[in-house]
């Protein structure tokens, strides 16, 4: 056990798996000599060489397109997109190609790769260094999306993702990168994908969150506890394919759900979970399932703490839902 923040836990996972499996290669802008703009890949080029930790030209199209080719060619590439906001030039390769390769080839080809993507707000990044683009990749059949909320999960989920035989988008909440440290085991362990975690039990409301908003969810849960509202907090961990079962079981117990995400509201994962709850637990609902999300505006710079669904916005939603 060592105390690690999320940056060092991810670095540790990458180092472990690169030692363990020589098919794993990293590529991306500034990931090599610099070790990434967030230093997540620091020291890895030194250990594994320029052939396995590759500084690329400034082209997300090229990074993902060649990573797919590498995966087809038997490697396990872990490309990095420097910020989630810059994934759009790679969308064609992700949506048209990576997601459909297995399906359209009748299983002859697969694209096992993990696209590491720092996402989310909380670093004063404005429009283009703050977004959370999970929804469009969830909507695209054939992609998995993972988003850890803490260092321990980050390592276990990343190792599981690299070993998965399908393309995974691994979203790293920038706001959590250095925000907390915790005990992280050395060596190997994995956390199964598509398994949510009940991080706090409660009887009155189910609160679904992930990534950087998990801490806000827990803070809000603590706050409403003073008013006698017991909140069950679920960390989705894998956003897609989502663990419907765990969420539904909880809502069947509490009869109420609030879901929190940074991304804009319209057609976000919040909408999807509300719809799923209606499909699977309608008769258990004692209050309208409710979303606390980023607003349907571009992500602003100065007012980011008014944009984000922080605890101060989750609390009234919990209270209203509990008292409905």
């Amino acid at each position, binding site marked *: 056990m060592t105390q690690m923040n999320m940056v060092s836990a991810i670095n540790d996972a990458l180092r472990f798996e690169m030692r363990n499996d020589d098919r794993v*290669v990293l590529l991306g802008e500034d990931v090599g000599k610099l070790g990434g703009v967030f230093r997540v890949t620091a020291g890895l080029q030194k250990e594994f060489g320029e*052939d*396995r930790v*590759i500084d*690329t*030209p400034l*082209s997300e*199209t*090229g990074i*993902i*397109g*060649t*990573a*797919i*080719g*590498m*995966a*087809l*060619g*038997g*490697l396990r*590439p872990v490309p990095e997109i420097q910020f989630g906001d810059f994934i759009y*030039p790679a969308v*064609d*390769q992700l949506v*048209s*190609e990576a997601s459909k*390769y*297995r*399906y*359209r*080839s*009748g*299983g*002859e*080809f*697969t694209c096992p790769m993990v696209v590491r993507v720092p996402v989310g707000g909380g670093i004063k990044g404005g429009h283009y260094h703050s977004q959370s683009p999970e929804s469009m990749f969830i909507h695209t*059949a*054939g992609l*998995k999306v993972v988003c850890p909320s803490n260092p321990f999960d980050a390592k276990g989920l990343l190792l599981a993702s690299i070993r*998965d*035989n*399908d393309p995974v988008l691994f979203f790293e909440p920038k706001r959590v990168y250095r925000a907390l440290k915790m005990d992280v085991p050395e060596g190997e362990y994995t956390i199964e994908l*598509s398994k949510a975690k009940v991080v706090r039990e409660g009887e009155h409301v189910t609160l679904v969150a992930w990534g950087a908003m998990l801490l806000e969810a827990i803070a809000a849960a603590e706050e409403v506890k003073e008013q006698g509202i017991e909140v069950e907090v679920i960390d989705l961990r894998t956003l897609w*394919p*989502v663990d*419907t*079962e765990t969420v539904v079981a909880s809502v069947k117990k509490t009869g109420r759900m609030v879901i929190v995400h940074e991304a804009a509201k319209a057609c976000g994962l919040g909408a999807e979970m509300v719809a799923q709850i209606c499909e699977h637990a309608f008769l258990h609902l004692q209050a309208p399932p409710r979303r606390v999300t980023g607003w349907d505006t571009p992500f602003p710079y100065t007012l980011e703490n008014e944009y984000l669904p922080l605890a101060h916005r989750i609390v009234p939603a919990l209270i209203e839902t509990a008292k409905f």
Partner: protein
Amino acid sequence: MNLETKPGSIPPGTASKKIVGVLDFDGRADPETDPKLDLATARRIYEAMLRTRAIDARLMRLQRQGRIGFHVGCEGEEAAILASAAAMRDQDWLFPCYREVGAALYRGLSLQTYIDNMYGNANDIPKGRQMPDHVTARAQHFSSITAPIGTQITQAVGFAWAAKIRKQDVVTATYFGDGATSSNDFHAGMNFAGVYQTPTLFLLRNNGWAISISSEQQTHSRTYADKGVAYGVPAIRVDGNDALAVYGVTRAAVERASAGGGPTFIELVTYRTGAHSSSDDPTAYRETMESEEAQKRDPLRRLRRYLDRQNAWSDAEQTAAEEKITSELSVCIEKAEAAPAPSIASMFEEVFEDMPAHLVEQQAECVNGPRTRKRH
């Protein structure tokens, strides 16, 4: 200061526009450029070109009869496709566009498998999920054909790069059209191949058109080969209707790549004599090619004349080959038409390696749900 008179103001890239050729229109080989192909290979290429043309003609008829939904062929471009594929070694990989199914057949894909794909039936490798002509042929080292223009280009670079990293002697060749040079993946693929010196061949079929856009409208560069300059990737123009020239240049590029010499950009200058696809009517945007000229340039005719000069082909062989493919096709078509559609359950398979809960649920809903009255 007048830019026109400044050094550097004239676009660089003033290298030769010359197009490498071997065969003249009468099938005589230029001894300077002749790759001295063994006759067995030359015959094999010719036969494959012949088969490909016959298959295209038959499939287009099937489409017109409403028996298949779509076809995109390669009439006029057979040498560009088959002679280049023939120049690749067994361990090499092809990353095709949509006109190169002939190359997969050349490499051993069974005709039945191809025809099953044209029908999208239960025996189709992609299980009827893709449109006709979007085959996948892993055993033939032939990737899965896709529709979005250009995306295979960066993939071919990545695949070659993986081989280089793993120190395996594998060269990749990616086919694409003149229109695809405008795509994002052409730009990124050429750039990455240049920077990392991957063993990749960029095989541009410059067939004069991207649907209705002529290759002159597509770019203001003097030639397409000139685009190699932007990436430091050596480029060469070849008569794409001259099977021997295509073979020779491709083979040399394979050898260079295999020896660690990096990528090559090959502009195969050819012409799409037919429609873009079964959905297209080219009379709306172009004159039909002056037929005598087209015939003279015809890649099949030129290679046939070459073989004739070597006494390496005969009319009898021609007839036999034509009859063979005709009857093979009939058998395959009959079998494909008799095959059932893919199962409804299969629609939910292979989205992921393991079927997740939501797809198990949707599969059950669909399989157990009512059936449409519409046929598939």
